Every structure is written in structure tokens, then in C-alpha cells.
């Protein structure tokens, strides 16, 4: 196995299977990415994200980063996307929605223009020099004979021990932050919020006092219903259809 890998690393020209693998994985990656941004249903967008992440994992294997490919699938598709899907389904936003909403006039054109500008800039910068500059093997050279996992482990627990420990602090902070954010505010006997509790993310009505938060929540259904049952005249059919779709997603 290791001799096979060694031979594959040394060979200079891309073989046909390599090219076929790359092209298929690249198509899966790009198709999935386009699916994420153009799917009207968030659940389908999350599933498209899975295909992108899987394609990236295939490319990692193609580049001899086997451990990262495994971690990519386990952590990204196994944990992160599942977490996103959990939240989508818990919040009940797994419905069709308007994909492109203009916050200001012509926003999507500006957005595509900016995206293409980013791409052109990156490619120009890469082409103006050669693609790859810089010294080779400054920290630790890749060894074709030892396994990818042991190389990563050796590097991680010697040269990169301090950043590795710092990530544990980061994870603790993230866990505490998630618990604090997702916690329901405690209520006292009279139904109001306790002293010192703030009414987080009051979006509707900046002037409401915390005690009436429940009332404002209960009233939220009303505008949605009025949008859905709005009378449709023939001329305004398209507009009210769009509003209906918006109403479904809200």
C-alpha cells in the first residue's frame, strides 16, 4: 500500500483515473454549492451542502490528506450539517421561501457582480505571480512512507501544541455561549422576567417592556394570516403570490 502511494506521489503526469476523479468531484462540489444558494427549501440546501462537503473529501483523498478527508465527512456531514438540519426542523422553517429578496433595488445583480469580482481578483492575483510561491518544507516535510495520521499527530502535539490547547478553550467558550444563548429566560411568580434578565432579541417592537413579550409573541400570527388571506385581484396576482410565498416562510 505504501509503495503504491509512493509511486503515485512520484509520478509526474496526471493519470486518466486522477483526472476523471478530479472532474467528477469538482462537478459534485460546484453543483452542490449552486444547489445551496439556489434551493428555495433550506432542507434541500443542507442536503446539497452535504454533496459539496463529500466532493471536497474526495479531493482531499486525491491530494493524499486521508485523515482530513475522514474528519471532513465525520465532523462536517456527520455533526455540523446534522446540527443545521436539527435546527431547521425544530424551528419549522423547512418550507419553500423566496430565494431572492431585494433589500434594495437590484441587490442580486450587485451581489453577483461582487462575487465575480472576488473570483477575478483572486485568479488575477494568482496568475500575476506563479500560482505557488514560497519556500518548500519550512516546518516539516511530508513523508510519503509514514502514514498521514501519524505525521499530523506528531506535528500537532509538538510544533502546534499551544494552538491545539487554545482550541480546547475555544470549544469551552462556544459550548457556554450556545447554552447561554439557547436558554429560556427564567420567569418569576408574576410571569414577568426576573431582575437582571434582559429580553433578548426583541425584534418586533423595540419599545415593548419585557412583561408584555408574551402578548407580542401571541399577536405575531395576525399579520401572517392577513397576508395569506389577502384578496387577489387579477392584476396583482403575481405580487400577492410572492407575498403568499413569503407568508409561508414566515
Amino acid at each position, binding site marked *: 500500500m505504501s509503495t503504491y502511494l509512493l509511486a503515485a*506521489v512520484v509520478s509526474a503526469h496526471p493519470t486518466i483515473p486522477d483526472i476523471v476523479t478530479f472532474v467528477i468531484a469538482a462537478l459534485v462540489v460546484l453543483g452542490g454549492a449552486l444547489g445551496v444558494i439556489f434551493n428555495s427549501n433550506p432542507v434541500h440546501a443542507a442536503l446539497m451542502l452535504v454533496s459539496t*462537503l463529500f466532493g471536497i473529501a474526495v479531493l482531499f483523498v486525491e491530494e493524499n490528506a486521508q485523515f482530513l478527508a475522514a474528519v471532513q465527512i465525520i465532523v462536517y456531514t456527520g455533526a455540523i450539517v446534522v446540527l443545521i438540519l436539527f435546527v431547521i426542523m425544530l424551528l419549522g422553517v423547512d418550507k419553500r421561501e423566496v430565494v431572492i429578496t431585494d433589500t434594495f433595488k437590484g441587490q442580486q445583480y450587485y451581489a453577483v457582480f461582487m462575487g465575480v469580482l472576488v473570483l477575478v481578483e483572486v485568479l488575477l492575483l494568482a496568475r500575476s505571480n506563479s500560482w505557488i510561491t514560497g519556500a518548500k518544507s519550512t516546518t516539516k516535510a511530508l513523508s510519503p512512507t509514514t502514514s498521514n495520521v501519524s505525521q499530523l499527530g506528531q506535528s500537532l502535539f509538538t510544533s502546534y501544541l499551544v494552538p491545539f490547547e487554545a482550541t480546547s478553550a475555544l470549544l469551552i467558550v462556544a459550548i457556554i455561549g450556545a447554552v447561554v444563548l439557547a436558554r429560556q429566560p427564567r420567569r418569576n411568580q408574576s410571569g414577568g422576567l426576573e431582575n437582571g434578565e434582559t429580553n433578548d432579541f426583541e425584534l418586533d417592537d423595540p419599545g415593548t417592556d419585557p412583561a408584555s413579550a408574551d402578548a407580542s409573541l401571541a399577536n*405575531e400570527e395576525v399579520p401572517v394570516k392577513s397576508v395569506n388571506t389577502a384578496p387577489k385581484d387579477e392584476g396583482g396576482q403575481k405580487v400577492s403570490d410572492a407575498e403568499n410565498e413569503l407568508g409561508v416562510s414566515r
Partner: protein
Amino acid sequence: MSIEPSWYLTLAAVLFSIGVIGLLIRRNVLVMLMCVELMLNAANLTFVTYSRALNDISGQIAVFFVLVVAAAEVVVGLGIIVAIFRRKAGATADDAHLLKG
């Protein structure tokens, strides 16, 4: 294993741009979070490609740390989204512009 690194770098640049466009045109916070994941993955692909091209393990270590940061980012981001949706069902990114604590 010897496809030109420039192919991978171009693919990563295109993927990053798709992430940027998605982040700018979508208003659903969950989909915007997925677009951030796309951009992080494009960066990861670049890191691994340079790791191979420069024959250096550090690029793969960087990807390892990006994975940890991405996990933390998703957890905190989803916590914020759940807190927002508890106050207003179906909130989009435009509804959360007040930043009122």
C-alpha cells in the same frame, strides 16, 4: 495524485465566489450560515493544495484548526438563530438589524 495544483486552486476560488454570492443574495440566516461553510471549505481546499505543492504538513494542520473553528462557529451561530426565532418566527437577516441586547 499529481493533478496540477492550479486546478485545485481555481476550483477553490470558484467555490469561494459561489459562497460570497450566496451570502449576499440569500436572506435566510440558516442558508447564510451554509454559505459561510462553503467559503471555509474553499479555504480548506486551498490549504491542502498548498500543503501538497510546498511539501509541508502545516497546511493540513491549519485545516484541522479551521474545522474546530467552523464547528464552534456553527454552534454559536445556531444558538443565536434559535434565540432570534424564539422571539419572531421566520425572522430573516433583515429583521435582526436592531442589535438590541
